[in-house]
């Protein structure tokens, strides 16, 4: 049996539970129509339209996402190196240190340019 089959079994149980819960919640609860209740929650004032119309949000979030990709790919390269470390020898170690140093240069650049400042 493939080792991935049990994962699918557990996912199926969890999915059944989640769908059942949502269905049961929709059936068991009362339904009392109220126009104000269906508005977006904003502490009782008229809701702002930005969120619904795909409003703009701080550009910092895009920057964080791009930096995440850089470092996540770095760790993806580091993982196979770490797993096979004992069989690779000194050459791989030196190469990996050079690789980390290269990414560190990019990191220092981002830091100096203020890419890691939030406000």
């Amino acid at each position, binding site marked *: 049996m493939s080792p991935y089959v*049990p994962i699918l079994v557990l*996912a199926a149980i969890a999915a059944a*539970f989640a769908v059942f819960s*949502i269905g049961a919640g929709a059936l068991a609860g009362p339904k009392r129509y109220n126009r104000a209740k269906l508005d977006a929650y904003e502490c009782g004032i008229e809701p702002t339209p930005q969120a619904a119309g795909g409003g703009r*949000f701080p550009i910092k979030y895009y920057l964080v996402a791009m930096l995440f990709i850089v*470092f996540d790919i770095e760790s993806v390269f580091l993982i196979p190196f770490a797993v096979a470390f004992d069989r690779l020898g*000194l050459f791989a170690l030196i190469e990996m240190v050079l690789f980390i140093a290269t990414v560190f240069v990019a990191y220092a650049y981002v*830091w100096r340019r203020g890419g890691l400042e939030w406000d």
Partner: protein
Amino acid sequence: MSLLAQGVLAAENPVADFGNDNGWVVFGKALFIFVFLVLLTLLTIWGERRVVARMQSRPGPNRVGPFGLIQGLADGVKLALKEDVIPKAVDKLVFVLAPIISAITCFVAFSVIPFGPAARIPFTDIVTPLQLTDLPVAVLFVLAVAAVGVYGIVLAGWSSGSTYPLLGGLRSSAQVISYEIAMGLALISVFLYAGSMSTSSIVAAQEHGVVREIFGLDLTMPAWFAVQLPVAFVIYVIAMVGETNRAPFDLPEAEGELVGGFHTEYSSLKFALFFLAEYINMITVSAIATTLFLGGWRAPWPLSAIGGGMLNEGWWPMLWFIGKLLGFIFFFIWLRGTLPRLRYDQFMRFGWKVLIPVALVWIVAVACWRAANSATIAADGTTRIVLIAVGIALLFAIFGALITGIDRADRRDAARHETPPDEVDPFAGGFPVPPLPGQRLIRSNGIGNGRDDDARRPALAAAGEADEEVHGG
């Protein structure tokens, strides 16, 4: 070549053997994990409320069932009987899908966690590992599933069509991806020591400590990776709190600023699913920490010696595993009862400027140390000495960079808040402003051009005199 490939794969493959599992065994184990997680969630909610209550000198829930134990279940039933509101601005399909994504991913991540070694199922002859399944890339699988779980949060925030959930969802995703890097980098040194990503192999790698000769004595080094790799352990523990949006890093749900965060618009059992997912995520990261750093299901040191490792066989390991797991959960609750919430810029600064560089340098230091102690890599004495020297230099670099970095950040923060002037005119802005500590009130006409200028004069004069009295005395 193929022989070599097989040998390489054999080293990374799981230690646990799932050859005896048939469909029923797999289904039973999956059902067990499901029930275990749901029950442990109810117990954790109860425990959290009771422990935090005790820390705040109040009793906590104690009415529903013995010691209030089934309070969580009562809350669940209450939520099920509430109206399932779907606001009119939402994107309906995504709005319903988001809690389902969260719920499925949080359960699935637990499928590779080992509860114990092979044991016989009672009343049958089937011997099977106390673990649903294991993969050569098990820990990577958990990280991947956790990353998919972010979709549940960000889609919930986006589809709500409301400002607070959108901001909460964005904050949450930025937070989770930032701390996921530090978490992944902390785990790399564990893979380096264990030589595998399979959870059962990592537990097996923590069985015996290395025997090392120190000053003529043969000492068995401790085998838990938390002791062998302390920096990685600390980074992981901090990152796991950030990953699960728990206090003091619960910024996406900062109720003072964002109402409820990404689940503000959710009600009834959809809200309950998010709540369940949050607690199960907390249990999952605790289980990963137990497996990767605290020896997994293995009995702690003095107990492991009893009866020639008797306590590491059969069903006993489940006890140690759950005990260590509950220890981490108590740690989470303790944090929540102790620490105030961080500001978002402090939180991001800590993640990007402290955790990530420390984790990177730690990986290089560990790799150098490991290479220096390996017979195949450091064959001659010179290489060995060079590697040890590089490793030690990098360790010093970690601490040096940490101290100077934090110091510089503190000074920049201090520079940003300029010192307030000694004298302050309380009516300069057109409305009264109280003085800061140490500031002296001065008379001025302000900008009000005196409609009620004369009326407020006596009060100002009185305040000025009172202030002078304090400073003069």
